[in-house]
């Protein structure tokens, strides 16, 4: 296996080449990609329209954002002065590709206007876990060397093994590059839909607990939530023009940070994402309180996989489970007379 830094460099060069060609040939009007973050242990999205800016594009293991977020809902950035939709090239790791396909299924975006610059993602670093371990000390620089993540501050240098400090969802990820759809993909992409086999044994431990234990554990995990809604803002599937948390007629739950209201927010969000979540882990990566929301993501994946044998964002022909129904759906949970 090649060193991660070399691989990153390789990916970065490919991205730049492909992006440059697309812009030069006028195949796209704008490239959405990642650039260096303003603080260490982060990256920012960048919107490039001029060829000379291409060198600002980067790829490293901190490109946690899901860029499909910028495609739906369609903001003014996606239109030119004449009010026509522009063509967009987007740097697509596996989960960005999945989000784009799922948004197409939900009729949110027009695939004709999108070119995915596919890459074979090599995993995203769990930055919240590293931040937690570094604690109060200030991080000045992060880099990946060999198979380790190196975090430097003014009076310390720490090494973390990459394989261990990868995002939990990336460890389980089976769709590392975007699935191929028609000719909207350049670069690396999956030719045939991947066979997704998963045992979900990482949450089976939690599931086997009693309701009381589960409630207490959830309370412990979520109670630090300040309801800043960063998870919603980062989520490519949260494109509703009026989110249920902003609704005030009716008010679905209170505005306090009491646990009941926090619970209602996370539960209702999970309910909204069932069969739609593409398991990109962007929500956990942006949480300022470092709450690990991945266990909810995993549960949602598990429910739709087991109940409906569905995995979101793999192909654009299959309807998501909540958009359809069958006469012979399972109804074991319905109450029957004794």
């Amino acid at each position, binding site marked *: 296996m090649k060193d991660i830094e070399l691989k990153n460099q390789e990916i970065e060069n490919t991205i730049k080449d492909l992006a440059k060609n697309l812009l030069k040939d006028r195949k796209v009007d704008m490239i959405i990609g990642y650039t260096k973050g303003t603080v260490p242990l982060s990256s920012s999205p960048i919107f490039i329209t001029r060829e000379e800016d291409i060198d600002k594009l980067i790829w490293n293991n901190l490109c946690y954002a899901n860029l499909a977020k910028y495609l739906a809902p369609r903001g003014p950035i996606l239109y030119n002065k004449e009010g026509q939709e522009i063509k967009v090239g987007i740097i697509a790791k596996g989960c960005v590709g999945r989000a784009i396909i799922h948004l197409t299924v939900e009729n949110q975006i027009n695939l004709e206007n999108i070119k995915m610059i596919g890459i074979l993602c090599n995993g995203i670093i769990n930055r919240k876990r590293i931040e937690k371990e570094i604690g109060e000390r200030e991080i000045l620089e992060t880099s990946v060397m060999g198979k380790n993540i190196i975090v430097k501050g003014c009076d310390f240098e720490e090494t973390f093994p990459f394989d261990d400090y990868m995002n939990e969802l990336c460890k389980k990820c089976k769709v590392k590059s975007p699935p191929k759809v028609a000719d909207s993909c350049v670069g690396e992409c999956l030719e045939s839909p991947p066979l997704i086999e998963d045992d979900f044994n990482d949450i089976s431990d*939690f*599931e086997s607990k009693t*309701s*009381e*234990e*589960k*409630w*207490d*554990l*959830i309370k412990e995990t979520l109670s630090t939530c300040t309801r800043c809604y960063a998870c919603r803002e980062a989520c490519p599937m949260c494109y509703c023009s009026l989110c*249920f948390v902003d609704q005030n007629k*009716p008010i*679905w*739950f*209170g505005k*306090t940070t*009491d*646990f*009941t*209201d926090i*619970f*209602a927010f*996370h*539960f*209702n969000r*999970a*309910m909204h994402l*069932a*069969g739609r979540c593409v398991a990109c882990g962007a929500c956990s990566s942006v949480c300022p309180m470092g709450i690990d929301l991945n266990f909810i993501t995993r*549960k949602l994946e598990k*429910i*739709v996989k087991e*109940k409906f044998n569905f995995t979101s964002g793999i192909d654009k022909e299959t309807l998501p*489970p*909540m958009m359809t*129904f*069958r*006469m012979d*759906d*399972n*109804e074991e*949970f*319905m*109450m*029957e*007379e*004794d």
Partner: protein
Amino acid sequence: MTVQTEQDIKVNEKWEPKIIAFLCNWCSYAGADLAGVSRIQYPPSIRIVRVPCSGRINPFFIVKALLEGWDGVLVSGCHPGDCHYLTGNLVARRRFGILKDLLEFFGIEPDRVSFMWASAAEGERFASLIKKTTKLVKKLGPNKKFEKNW
């Protein structure tokens, strides 16, 4: 965990749960009506909300009801295939299945929220299922998880 005092237990014996029941206009509500006019006895624990169809039930209704302190939630619609709007209850069934799984995952006792089918001709069945729900919720005790602490 709080220790149950003797007084608590006494209160619990007398305690009757309050259950909010969302009944669809065309089958279950008429079923409840039939149970009434046929003088079939069932516990007075349910408060009925009539909705056009079980497909009208937003999962948020159920969460909101629990949040407001209802001890149990019951949703009832027409049998599959009998829906007045043809497929409303089939859409609802998928939602309820996921909702129930998620509630269990988040640590809510699954028996607090029940789903059932009852047609307009099934007054008997309606009464017996209400009895069953009441029994299940009574066993769980009051909905204390959603008490606000401030």
